[in-house]
Every structure is written in structure tokens, then in C-alpha cells.
């Protein structure tokens, strides 16, 4: 499907695997200590959800993976990663197609080439017919999907999704969770999913990592074994959700 899409030439910091490793990572912003000794391994094609209270350094973990900031202590090893920021960060003047192809433009592709590559994904993501629409004309759910296509087209083995559905209403959120699960089943990637919604984490991830309030460290890790697709009211899903909430409450 991506035969025409050339991966951008970016030297990944670890060429051996498409995984991510945090090794006793410390990070402070000025006097504020954000991360205190986070150790975490994410296997290739594994989906890991990072859950924790606001300000616990979840987004900082993603910035470390994407190389936007460096750790003060410890080590981060990660394959090349693409970031989907908290708000969609779509460019208001560009069409949905041009927004989706932004990563390719940055990688050196021409406008027509980037559009052609983005267009191939539009049908699969339910965006057909909205190629020329500006972001303002798209619904919240569609905007997130355009942002996701943009993230996919960066052609990186690791996806960093920062609260991708945080701004959506409950119903759209539910649909988008189902949709993301399907998309990742079709195109497996290593995913770091930041969320403060425990249920979302349990529905989507292979593993849920619970973080403490600031300074963030790993409090508990839950393996999510129920088979996909998962439903909110699956007994195993409910049980895991309760266990996660308990662990967070104890943190």
C-alpha cells in the first residue's frame, strides 16, 4: 500500500529494532522534576498505553522518543518515531490532502507526489470526498483521522500518539477508538499511546503502563490479554480497568 511512499531519510537512534527503550530516565524543566527514573521497554509492533494524572510527564516521554528533547539522566533508545500532537496541529490553510501529506513534503516529496500518496489512504480512513476540505470544514473525528494519516505517512516504525481523542465527545471518541484499533490491526506499528482514560488504554493497548503524579515514574504495568476486538463491557476489560484505577488511586 505504501509502495510509492519513500520513507524519509532519518537516522534512527537505534537501527536494530523498531522498539523503544527507556533506561532510568530523568528529566526536569528548570526546578520542576518531571520524570524520576522511568524504565520501560516497548517491543516492535507492541501497543503500549501510558496512563497517569495530568502533568505526570506522559507527553515528555513522547518528546524524548521523538528526539524533541534530551533526558537529563538515563538513556532513551528508539527507532525513528512520528508524533501526533495532542491537538491535531492541522494547518488551517491546507486541504485535508495536503495536511495528510505534510510529512512527505518535509521529506522532500513534491506537492503532487505527496497528494497522491495521501489520497491512497483516504478511502480506508473514511475521508473520501473530503480531500480538498480545509480542517475547519471537517468534524473533530475526521480531523483526528487526517492527523493520523499524516502520522502514518511519516513512514516511521514508531507512532507517538498524545491523547489523540482527548478533545472529542464521548460518542465520537468511542467510534474513533474502534477505528484506531482497526487501523493498527491493518498496519501494525510500535505505538506509544498517551491517555488519561484508563478504559481507552485497556481497549487499545497490549500493555498499560501506569505512571505516578509528578515526578512521573512507573507505578504498575498491566498486561492486557483479552482478544481483540474488545468491548467496553467485556468482563476481562472491566476487571482490568478497575485494577488500573486501583493502582492509580494507590499511587
Amino acid at each position, binding site marked *: 500500500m505504501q509502495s510509492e511512499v519513500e520513507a*524519509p531519510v532519518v537516522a534512527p537512534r537505534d537501527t536494530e529494532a523498531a522498539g523503544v527503550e527507556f533506561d532510568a530516565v530523568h528529566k526536569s524543566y528548570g526546578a520542576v522534576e518531571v520524570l524520576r527514573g522511568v524504565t520501560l521497554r516497548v517491543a516492535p509492533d507492541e501497543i503500549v498505553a501510558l496512563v497517569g494524572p495530568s502533568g505526570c510527564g506522559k507527553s515528555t516521554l513522547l*518528546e524524548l522518543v521523538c528526539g524533541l528533547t534530551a533526558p537529563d539522566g538515563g538513556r532513551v533508545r528508539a527507532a525513528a*518515531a512520528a*508524533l501526533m500532537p*495532542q491537538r491535531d496541529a492541522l*494547518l*488551517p490553510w491546507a486541504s485535508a490532502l495536503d495536511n495528510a501529506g*505534510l510529512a512527505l513534503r*518535509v521529506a522532500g516529496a513534491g506537492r503532487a507526489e505527496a497528494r497522491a500518496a495521501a489520497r491512497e489512504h483516504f478511502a480506508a480512513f473514511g475521508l473520501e470526498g473530503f480531500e480538498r476540505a480545509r480542517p475547519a470544514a471537517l468534524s473533530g473525528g475526521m480531523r483526528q483521522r487526517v492527523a493520523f494519516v499524516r502520522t502514518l505517512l511519516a513512514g516511521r516504525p514508531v507512532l507517538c500518539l498524545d491523547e489523540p481523542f482527548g478533545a472529542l465527545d464521548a460518542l465520537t471518541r468511542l467510534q474513533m477508538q474502534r477505528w484506531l484499533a482497526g487501523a493498527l490491526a491493518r498496519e501494525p506499528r510500535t505505538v506509544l499511546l498517551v491517555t488519561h482514560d484508563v478504559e481507552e488504554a485497556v481497549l487499545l493497548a497490549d500493555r498499560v503502563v501506569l505512571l505516578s503524579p509528578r515526578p512521573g515514574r512507573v507505578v504498575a504495568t498491566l498486561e492486557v490479554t483479552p482478544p481483540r476486538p474488545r468491548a467496553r463491557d467485556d468482563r476481562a476489560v472491566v476487571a482490568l480497568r478497575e485494577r488500573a484505577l486501583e493502582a492509580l488511586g494507590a499511587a
Partner: protein
Amino acid sequence: MTALLALLLLLAGWEALVWLGGVDPLLLPAPTQVVEALWEDRALLAPDLWTTAYEVVLGLAAAVAAGAALAVAMHLSPALRRALRPLVIGSQAVPVPVIAPLVILVLGFGLAPKVLLVALVCFFPITINLYDGLRATDPDARRLLRSLHATRWQALRLVEAPAALPAAFTGLKVAAAVAVIGAVFAEWAGAEAGLGHALLTANGQLETARAFAATLLLFLLAVALYGACALLERRVVDWTPRTDSGGP
């Protein structure tokens, strides 16, 4: 509609004041006398209008080029920002009537000093607004580009420049409205044509009505320039929802 009504009321009051108040038309001609002078002296004033319009448009274009270059340079280089900002701001403290004769002295009586003085009046709002616009880019979009390893030039071209366009047009419209001031002062300092020159000679000949007619043309020129910029803005910046067209 309301603007038209207000204008008509103002003109009617003015007209009544002159005729009923017995004001000397040498001091204040009535609107009808101004229009009469405009019509009778049309052969005299039309070339002046074109001369000034030409100077203003060229000066505005020069200001856009210089202002854009300055704003981008200040945006890209902190050193240039520190070095240039006081100069850019200080340039607005320079009284145009004072330096206009000096500029004429150096550059002569041709087109160049007029274009330069118009540009001097215009480049400040263009530079500052564009500069602010470039800095106001959505931080998330900036982070996104950094995560994609975009070069500085790509960030500017793909994100910052388009994001700055609405602010840049605000600057351009302000510049368009004040541009004629630069042209008039430049012509007063030394010119053989132009509305500023016409204004000066009409005053000297006590042709007050013709002086007012020339002023009316300056007024219309500024409004037309502003309108052209607003129209261009609406065509270029077509993604922001607006409540008011921003036209004159």
C-alpha cells in the same frame, strides 16, 4: 449604508455652513465648489493623480519587499533581531517633512526619493505585523515539524509564512492607508507633478477649491489602495472565518 448616510449628512452640514454662515470660500469652499473645481481642473489634476498613484504603488511595493526581508531576517536570526529592532522602531520617529528635503537633495527631483519616502512611511507596519505573525505560529505545529526533522527553511515555507499571512495583510492595509502621506511630503520637498505638488501650487494661487479637490483625490486614492489590499487579502487568506469583510 450607514457610512454613506453619515457622509451625506456631513457634506450637507458643511455646505450649509459655507452658504448660510457666510464663510469666505478662500478659507473653506463648499463641497459643491470642490466638486466643481475637480471637474473644471480635471485636465490639470488627472496627470497629478497618476503621478502620485504611481509613486505610492511603487513605494508600497518597495516597502513590502524590504519589510518582508527585514521581518524574515529578524525572525530567523536573534542577532539580527537585536540589531535591527531599535532601528526599525526608531525609523518611525524620523519626521518625514524634515528628512524629505534631505532625501531630495541626495536623490534629486526624480521618482526615486518619492518611492523611498513612501516606503519609509509604509515599511514599519508591514515589518512589525509580519514579524509578529511569524512568531505566532501554533507551537504544536512547530513541534510537529521538528519531530519530522524539517529544516529551518521548510518550517518557514510550509508553516510559518502561511500562518503569518493574516497578520501581514493587516500591516499591508495600514501601510496602504498612510502611504499617500509619504508621497505628499516628498512632493512638497521638490517635485514638478503629483497631487502634493498640485496642493502646494493651488495654495500659492489662492485656489482653495482646487486644493480641496486635490485633497479629495488623495483621500480617494488611499481608500482605493486600502480596498485593493483588502480584496487581495480576501482572495489569499481564504481560510479564516471572518465576521466583517474589512473593506472600506
